[in-house]
């Protein structure tokens, strides 16, 4: 490179290309995103946070919680699962031999090993997973053939992955989950567990408050710092607890006559944590939803 101008030009083109591809591209593709439809439902996702939960997001940001916690679930795959739900008049042993007889059908031949292994040692406990894999034709074929003999099965789509197996979520996080977050606090280190669906795992606000005040009172050997500055120690009025005083085990409780009361910031942060639920199926992250009667 002989001149300053050529160096400038090279750098300009290089950075311009990546600006165009990684900033402008995603902005065009995702920047105007609106709420999306939840699969098999008339609901929309995400739900705008209200009240304390919105303020709690700012408390989360201000205290750098994203330094140790992530809010994104990973998924390594998806699977079609078919399971027995009702055997009708049949016995487990009959069904095993019936299914073995089905394995000669060309479409099912490839899976005979897998299914036989699944059914080995099964003596009728329900529900029982018959097949779990990527092929949905197998699932629908098995379902039809078993329905014809009066056996009820349930076919589901499930997400697979270590995060999901740990119960941290039912599907991976996608861009739609963060639509109403300002700022987006994804986190990059799991010194503590993932929080994307903590509102589903620990929906009790009092649990969250106690955990913030004294993490080791609820999770032994936790390395989470105690956030005592989000709480106030005050004298009990007339010897009685205030309505929102924390109920603490002996080792963490204050001396007689004193109680721990959460400040508004603590309540906001707890409300935010309880609002973190990313368990609805979307088109880009599908799974069969579990119906809960209203």
């Amino acid at each position, binding site marked *: 490179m002989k001149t300053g101008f050529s160096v400038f030009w090279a750098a300009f083109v290089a950075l311009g290309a990546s600006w165009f591809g990684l900033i402008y591209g995603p902005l065009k593709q995702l920047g105007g995103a609106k709420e999306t439809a939840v699969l*098999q439902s008339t609901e929309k996702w995400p739900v705008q946070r209200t009240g304390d939960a919105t303020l709690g997001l700012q408390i989360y940001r201000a205290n750098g919680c994203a330094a140790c916690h992530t809010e994104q679930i990973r998924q390594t795959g*998806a699977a079609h699962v078919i399971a027995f739900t009702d055997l009708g008049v049949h016995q487990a042993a009959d069904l095993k031999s019936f299914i073995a007889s089905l394995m000669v059908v060309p479409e099912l031949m490839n899976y005979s090993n897998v299914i036989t292994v699944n059914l080995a040692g099964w003596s009728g406990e329900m529900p029982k997973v018959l097949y779990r894999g990527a092929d*949905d034709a197998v699932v629908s074929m098995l*379902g039809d053939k078993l329905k014809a003999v009066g056996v009820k099965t*349930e*076919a589901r789509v499930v997400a697979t992955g270590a995060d999901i197996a740990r119960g941290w979520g039912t599907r991976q996080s996608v861009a739609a989950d963060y639509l109403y977050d300002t700022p987006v606090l994804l986190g990059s280190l799991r010194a503590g567990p993932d929080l994307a669906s903590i509102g589903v795992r620990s929906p009790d606000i009092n649990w969250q408050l106690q955990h913030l005040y004294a993490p080791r009172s609820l999770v032994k050997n936790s390395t989470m710092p105690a956030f005592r500055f989000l709480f106030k120690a005050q004298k009990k009025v007339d010897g009685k607890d205030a309505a929102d005083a924390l109920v603490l085990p002996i080792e963490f409780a204050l001396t007689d006559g004193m109680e721990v009361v959460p400040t508004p910031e603590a309540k906001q942060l707890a409300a935010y944590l309880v609002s973190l639920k990313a368990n609805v199926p979307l088109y*880009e992250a599908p799974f069969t939803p579990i119906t809960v009667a209203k």
Partner: protein
Amino acid sequence: MSDEKKSCCSNETGEPTVTRSSAPMWIIVVTLTLLFTGGLFIDSHSGWFGKNIYAPYKSPEQLESFQPRSGAASAMARGKAVYEGVCGICHGSDGAGKPGQAPALAASEWVTAKGFNRLAHIPLAGVSGPIQVNGKGWNLNMAAMGAALPDEDVAAVLTYIRTSWGNKAEAVTADEVKKVRAEIGKSPQPYSGAQLQAMPE
């Protein structure tokens, strides 16, 4: 400090110099190979810049194949969609009914009855004349809102109202709706409360 001229070789300014030659061929070959391999990787993993394709899904076809199709949930969702579009205007999204317009479906003995036969006649033929719901008397006209709907939709919406708002009753299948429709015939007259009571459950 001022020993620049001693420390650096052939340059009287004391500043470093660079030998002139070109880059070795092998590194250019390596770069081109990596470019090609990477191109294959992009082809297989990028979902070709689709907005909805998130890893681990690799293509729109694969994502489509994993969309859940069957299951109780889809029937509920379908039932809810039908309800909100057809019945909810009068009976309310919360099934509480509207005074002077339609009776409540929540905790209604017609909805939660063990047998669905009487209930199934209502959307397929309509109701006209006096009818008691939860101890209250109603005397309005309901058109056969479900007559034009397919069996699956009627079954879905009946299942939906029988399992929502605290109601706990068994689902209704499309086949069962089909049987009731066959019984009623082509252009039925709306039933009155007494006529419905006379039917088997």
